């Protein structure tokens, strides 16, 4: 199963605006992507509530995963970029 390990770039972590940007990007993908932290159960990346509940802080590593389907690799690359970007630095 394709996956990416990414360190969160925004200081606030996946909260507030960075979380919203991530979830919006996930909703645009042709495949369902999950996000997990600390080896716990992965959650739907399109769910803002589930993503917030993960309580990911800046500098922590998350695992993005998806089923092996067409567009999977591109989707993971795109979302990995969103996670790694520091959205506070503008």
């Amino acid at each position: 199963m394709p996956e990416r390990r990414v360190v969160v770039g925004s200081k606030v972590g996946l909260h507030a605006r960075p979380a919203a940007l991530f979830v919006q990007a996930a909703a645009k993908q042709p495949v369902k992507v999950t996000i997990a932290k600390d080896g716990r159960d992965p959650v739907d990346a399109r769910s803002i509530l589930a993503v917030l509940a993960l309580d990911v802080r800046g500098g922590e590593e998350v695992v993005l995963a998806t089923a092996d389907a067409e567009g999977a690799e591109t989707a993971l690359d795109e979302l990995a970029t969103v996670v790694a970007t520091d959205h506070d630095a503008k």
Partner: protein
Amino acid sequence: MATPLRGVGVSPGVAVGPVALMGGEVPEPPAGGAAGLDAAAELHAAKAALEAVAGELETRGRAAGGDVQDVLEAQAMMVRDPSLDDQVETLTGQGRSAARAVWEAFTVYRDVLAGAGEYMAARVADLDDLRGRTVARLLGVPVPGVPHPGHPYVLVARDLAPADTAVLDATSVLGFVTEEGGPTSHTAILAKSLAVPAVVGCAGATGLADGTRVIVDGGTGEVRVDPSEAEVRAAQARVAARLAARGQATGPGATADGQPVSLLANIGGPADAPGAVGAGAEGVGLFRTEFLFLDRTDPPTIDEQREAYQAVFDAFPAGAKVVVRTLDAGADKPLAFLDLGGEPNPALGQRGLRAVRRVPEVLADQLEAVGTAAAASGADVWVMAPMVASADEAAWFRAQARRQPIGKAGVMIEIPAAALRAGAVLAEVDFVSIGTNDLAQYTFAADRLVSELASFQDPWQPALLELVARVGEAGRDSGKPVGVCGEAAGDPLLALVLVGLGVTSLSMAPGSLADVRLLLGRHTMADCRRLARLALEASEAGAARRRVREAASGVDELGL
């Protein structure tokens, strides 16, 4: 047409528009699954409600723009969350009603986020709010909190708290009607600052349905429900007349026969000064200085105070009068550096000048800061002390103020004893200013913070007006200025009465200045004295208000 509702008019003018109710807490829908629910229909209803709430948040966000838009769009995302959707689908499938399913689904995430600790407190509050909004829609009850109907509206509520008014979209509120509250309630103060009509203490108001058309008359206290087209047209004409008249209200305050009456603003810090200047205030009749002292462990330095005072003095044209009230502390406004201990009855305790006399160095510093700022500015700076009961206290304060280059030193008349002995008090100081809110509280032995006693705060009460008359007479005899700086001064009809009783300056919320200036300009001093007699001879506040309203000129023409 239904019978009109009646309350107390606390901010003049007329408004016509649809009611938007401010809801209370939304009840938790009962857990027991009702028999015979159609799961598909419940799911459909739940999804429609969620979509409607999300759509409303986005519409409001687009209208607001900026940071507010980001916040509201993030909230809309939560409402549209696919996991939430799945939960709702599962729960309705198990026989829950739409409202119950939505409640439980939000609660699942609310509890998860609450478990994640302090950091998530704001998101938990968001979810509570969103849950309340969606469930209120499904139950057909008013949405909790301040409404945002997306069009101009008359806000109807039980009462308003400062927190509610902070999130109120002031541009679309046409008027206020509250079931509770009195003339000095937060609603009254807010309505005056926005210059929109308000009726408080209006029984039956919260029974009105959302969207019902009403005419609110902030002068008479009447709320007409489902008015006729003719009534609506008449009310709209009054609204237009008031707008047109307010636009022409400029220049210093004076009676029709040219007797000047300074029209001043009440302000609570430098941030309020530009608004007061913009509203045409000739100066400041009450500059509250508590903002410098609250929420800190040490008193502010002289320099810090001087800067704040200077900012206010410089906001007004040279020569403008600015009356600084020295620190009004007390057990109800506790200050860390002024330990008063617990008092069983703070309103009758060590307040105002009484409290400050325990720490005279705090007063000395404040007067020095005022004096230094005054010397460096073009403003005509006066100082006054709050909560003065006797001529002796007035003399003590004058002696402190005289050490600084400050134009005039005076005291507030808030205690009946000081009003009764106004002649003796005025012999010691250069001016007095009547604080009608506290004077009412002490005259009627009615705590102004107890809402059940709100009617005792009505400044039209003849007993209160008699005390004002006594102070006015002492002012005339001594040739010294007598101001009023309570809510009373901003009521245009009552302002006429006060001037007739001998008051020489009126200080109010800036929003009230235009109405007061207009009505004053239509009455001579003789008119004002005649209206004052009518009020004094009335049996009670309501009668005084009606008699003066009927006898005054231009009330309808100016749309008051």
